[in-house]
């Protein structure tokens, strides 16, 4: 099957074609899923090299799972988001040097710079990222998947291995925290003029 003919194929069909040895499917899936995996990892980890490592590991696991993939059991993108999220959480925990309740503990404030000082130096997107980095990891993860990746709550619940109500709670708390962090900067970043 030529590459152009694959643009309308579902991820599941492409993965089946990949497992059947179709080279065009390998290219199509890489271009479709690679940026997604990298994007989530980058938002979670804030480090390009680490995000590339995590996304590469997730893709490698996907290629190796392809021959045994059972159609209809899970969406390929959901599976990939889940692997990326778990790898990111593992890295964050290792960086912190121990097991902590990531939902209960917020990022400690940087004594050298306040949130206001950081936001003064950033544009709107970067300001949002800076505020996201202040959230507890599970809230951050849920908000990224819901509002930046555009996923539905049931899919996020599957990715995070929690219930839909827990997702709604995490995103609500995350949004409330973001409003507090970003509200003071609205005028400076031009939102009050719109």
């Amino acid at each position, binding site marked *: 099957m030529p590459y152009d003919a694959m643009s309308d194929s579902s991820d599941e069909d492409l993965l089946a074609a990949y497992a059947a040895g179709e080279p065009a499917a390998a290219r199509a899936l*890489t271009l479709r899923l690679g940026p997604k995996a990298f994007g989530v990892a980058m938002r979670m980890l804030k480090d390009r090299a680490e995000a590339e490592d995590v996304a590469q590991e997730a*893709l490698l696991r996907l290629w190796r799972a392809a021959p045994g993939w059972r159609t209809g059991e899970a969406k390929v993108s959901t599976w990939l988001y889940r692997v990326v999220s778990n790898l990111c959480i593992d890295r964050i925990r290792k960086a912190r040097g121990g097991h902590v309740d990531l939902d209960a503990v917020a990022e400690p404030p940087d004594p050298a710079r306040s949130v206001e000082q950081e936001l003064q130096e950033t544009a709107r997107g970067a*300001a949002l990222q800076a505020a996201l980095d202040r959230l507890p990891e599970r809230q951050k993860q849920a908000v990224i998947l819901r*509002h930046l990746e555009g996923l539905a709550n049931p899919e996020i619940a599957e990715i995070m291995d929690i219930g839909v109500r827990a997702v709604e709670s995490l995103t609500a708390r995350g949004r409330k925290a973001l409003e507090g962090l970003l509200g003071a900067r609205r005028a400076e970043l031009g939102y009050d003029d719109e």
Partner: protein
Amino acid sequence: MSEKRRAEEAGLGPWFEAGRAEAPAPSGDWLARMEAMALEEQPAAPMPEVADLAARPRRGPRLHDLIPALGGWPAVAGLAAACAAGVWLGAVTPAGLSGWTSGTTSLTASDSYTTFEPASGFDVAMLGY
């Protein structure tokens, strides 16, 4: 974007829009390496099944292709019977024919030309003999 999501975002909507617009993108070099890795990890295309090989067209005709061309099984049976009879007549001369065949094998110069000539008298006349 769904109405539910829009309502959820409310005042944060412009921030999320900015975040979506500035999605982190991987480098082309990294994507190229990921594509190479995908191809390297890809299972080989499966070998054709035995059934597929059997379904492939053969180069030359087989016996069961020739039978219809010869007129079907009855015609082939007739040909086989005629062949067997010819072999039998050649190998074991029946008693009724032994006198005739021995006569043909002991011809002398004075014997008629037409004694053993398979051509008819008409054919000989046309040739001017």
